[in-house]
């Protein structure tokens, strides 16, 4: 479904990711692991079209997307929920969700359908519909960010560190929800530092180190990998 072939991205002279090969199949949940600054977010930004690809190629459903503008990529079905719960704090929860459905703004029935699905996944968002997004708790804000991304009804959802800064109990809920989203048929690419929790729900994974893929394999393989355990799971 999604294929990165030898993708490199630079910030000025600094090469943030180098010759990355990633492959995500329809219906999979693939996780990108790696410590701070390893290049996970940069990879996401490249897929979303926010950073231009310096070298290599990104294909989605057989078509090259590495030269498309970000809004075209969203319309093609790839939506990213960026790190740090970026919301519109002054807008209400409902308005935030509606902004997420921007690409379907002319198809009211699709917007309604998406909204119902999001409310089913996150009932709290319906309850707090008229509250300002900025007044929500950290966990609720993360739910809103994911909910908003889902409003575009993506084929491929990219979640960048959804569990960061959340209380352990909320983290658990978050991973449950991610699994539910996967079961509803959405392909997911997840970036995480919480390797043990992520590998529990993932099908496959890639471990990033200094901008390139160091290890890759199925979730079980990675979980069993001595090096991965030592570096990211701490056992």
């Amino acid at each position, binding site marked *: 479904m999604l294929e990165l072939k030898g993708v490199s991205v630079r910030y000025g002279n600094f090469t943030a990711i180098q010759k990355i090969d990633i492959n995500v199949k329809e219906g999979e949940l693939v996780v990108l692991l790696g410590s701070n600054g390893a290049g996970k977010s940069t990879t996401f930004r490249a897929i979303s079209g926010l950073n231009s690809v310096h070298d290599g190629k990104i294909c989605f459903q057989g078509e090259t997307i590495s030269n498309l503008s*970000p*809004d075209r990529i969203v*319309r093609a079905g790839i939506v990213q929920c960026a790190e740090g719960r970026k919301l519109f704090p002054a807008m209400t929860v409902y308005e935030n969700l509606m902004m997420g459905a921007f690409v379907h703004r002319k198809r009211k029935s699709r917007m309604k359908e998406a909204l119902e699905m999001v409310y089913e996944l996150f009932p709290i968002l319906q309850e707090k519909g008229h509250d300002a997004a900025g007044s929500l708790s950290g966990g609720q804000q993360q739910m809103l960010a994911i909910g908003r991304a889902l409003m575009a009804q993506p084929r491929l959802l990219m979640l960048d560190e959804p569990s960061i800064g959340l209380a352990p109990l909320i983290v658990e809920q978050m991973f449950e929800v991610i699994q539910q989203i996967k079961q509803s048929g959405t392909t997911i690419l997840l970036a995480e530092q919480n390797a043990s929790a992520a590998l529990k729900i993932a099908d496959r994974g890639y471990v990033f180190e200094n901008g390139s893929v160091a290890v890759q394999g199925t979730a079980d393989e990675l979980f069993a990998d001595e090096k991965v355990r030592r570096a990211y799971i701490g056992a």
Partner: protein
Amino acid sequence: MSVLLNRRTVVTGLILFAVLFPFVTRNDYVIHIMTLSFIWMIGVYGLNLLAGYTGYLSLAHAGFFAVGAYSLGLLTVEAGVNFWLALILACLFTGILGFLIGMIALRTREHFFAIYTLCVGYIIYLVIYKWDGLTGGVRGLIGIPAPSNIGPISFTSSISQYFLVLFFLLLTIFFIYRIVHSLTGRTFMAIRNSEDLALTLGISTMKNKLVSFVLSTIFAGLAGALYAGFVRFIGPDIGYITITFDLLIYLLIGGIGTMSGPIVGTLLIVWLSQYLQFLQDYRMLVFGPLLAFLIIFYPWGIVGIFQQWKQKRQARKARSIHQEENRKDEVELDAGVSADQEQVREG
């Protein structure tokens, strides 16, 4: 509901005030100044759409104001076009120029955008100043006709001009209000909030920024055209940077990114300037510190102060209702305790 009613009364009251104003003062000079400030407000609303709601601080707006003014002036004086047609063409021409400049300017961001547009504004000024053959250069353009009659209505008296400009101001406010409260408006605000975030939602930021830029310049052009028809004489000075900064000061003092900021800021500064005229250029000694103070402590201007105060009051009210309930509980508790004591005594 009460908020809505409240807002409706305020708006109706303001419109009523504006309509009755010339009959109350009956002073031509006061009406003249008021009409001028309405014209500035139209320009400030245009600037607000771009700088306030979309987050792109343009410093070229005096240029677009002058383009509107000179388009109307040249079309009526040199080409003999009817005033109303010239007014439409002036807005159209400003919009087209805005489109072309926006296409390039909007590739920059933040202070680069501000500096770029500052240069654009200055170039427009220079073109007007130097292109003697077309614009009359320093001599300016004289003999611009007043708005031509519509049926029996003529626009020669100061009161009729006042109402004409008021009409366009209300139209502008209505239009801006509708945009700001539409999906397009929310798109602008999304761009102001974070362009990357807007992009990840599938918003074509370039297209939307361009829409905002063009609309913004059209309002500046409309203000300029109305100015030309009202003052009937224009010189290159109306395109100079100081006008841009005037508009910006009105906006910042009133409240950038607010719906009523342009009205509040323009009225306040224009009338304050009138009262402080005896100070001449030393007026800036008053405005400068005022502006600095506001920007540091109240970045959303006077309207922002008011909104903050209202929010605090609401919060306090909510808290006091809460406390009231608590106190009632306490009183009941006290009553219970004393009743108990009474019983003990009786026993």
